[in-house]
């Protein structure tokens, strides 16, 4: 019980901390690394929630594939940052944006903390999941109820592949 809470606290705090670090680093590679840390801590949170599948997917896809792509791209196109050039952009727009974001956050928090949540609990209690098998349950859902989105997602991926190849081809 207490271990549960402890792990949660560490993971949660680390995810927030790494996010903050990410947005404030000058070197993009540093930002990328902090983001990877963030993703892994989120995966830990998923594990705490007994959602193994999504935890593995998080690590594989986000921290693995996507961040790898990002790092490659940074390597390809990042320009040497000199100390003089500011990494931030401060304009009237930015200030307004930050204010609004804080406002937005306030909304969210008021909803989370203040309001009661509605909704009807489903039938996949942890016992049931353990019975069927955690991955099997996800598989059944993907192939059953969410078949169409599943297929559409594959189409999206296909488009992504083709698009990326076409876009990055060298002009003849």
């Amino acid at each position, binding site marked *: 019980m207490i271990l*549960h*809470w402890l792990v*949660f606290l560490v993971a*949660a705090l680390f*995810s*927030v901390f790494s*996010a903050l670090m*990410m*947005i404030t680093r000058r070197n*993009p590679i540093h*930002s990328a690394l902090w983001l990877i840390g*963030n993703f892994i801590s*989120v995966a830990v*949170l*998923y594990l705490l*929630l*007994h959602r193994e599948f*999504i935890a593995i997917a*998080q690590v594989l896809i*986000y921290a693995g*594939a*996507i961040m790898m*792509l*990002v790092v*490659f*791209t*940074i390597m*390809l*196109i*990042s320009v040497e940052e000199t100390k003089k050039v500011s*990494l*931030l*952009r401060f304009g009237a727009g930015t200030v307004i944006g*930050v204010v609004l*974001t*804080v406002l937005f*956050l306030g909304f*969210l*928090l008021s909803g*989370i*903390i203040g309001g009661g*949540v509605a909704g009807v*609990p*489903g*039938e*996949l209690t942890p016992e049931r999941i353990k019975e069927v098998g955690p991955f099997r*349950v*996800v598989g059944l*859902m*993907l192939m059953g109820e*969410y078949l169409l*989105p599943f297929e559409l*997602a594959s189409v*999206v*991926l296909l488009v*992504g592949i083709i*698009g*990326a190849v076409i*876009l*990055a081809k060298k002009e003849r």
Partner: protein
Amino acid sequence: MVPLSLYMLVGALLFAIGIIGVLIRRDAIVIFMCIELMLSAVGITLVAASRYYHGMDGVVMAFMAMTVAASEAAIGLAIFVLLHRTYKGVRVDEINLLKG
């Protein structure tokens, strides 16, 4: 049992941090990373809700979001590579060709 609201708090915080990152940073790739952060934050909320509502729908939704994020990453980064050929370092401040 960690209450749902704490998970959602984490998600909300990460999301807000992502937005601020998007607004603040100048380099396109870092902005892109902040967007990924936002998507991930949404995933947290969804999965936590699925746990507390005894369903797998949240997981599936988060998975779909992940898929889209991957695809988006591919295309978006390809675009950045192309832009780099013209602009030598994609800085969002300087690109305004679509100015109305």
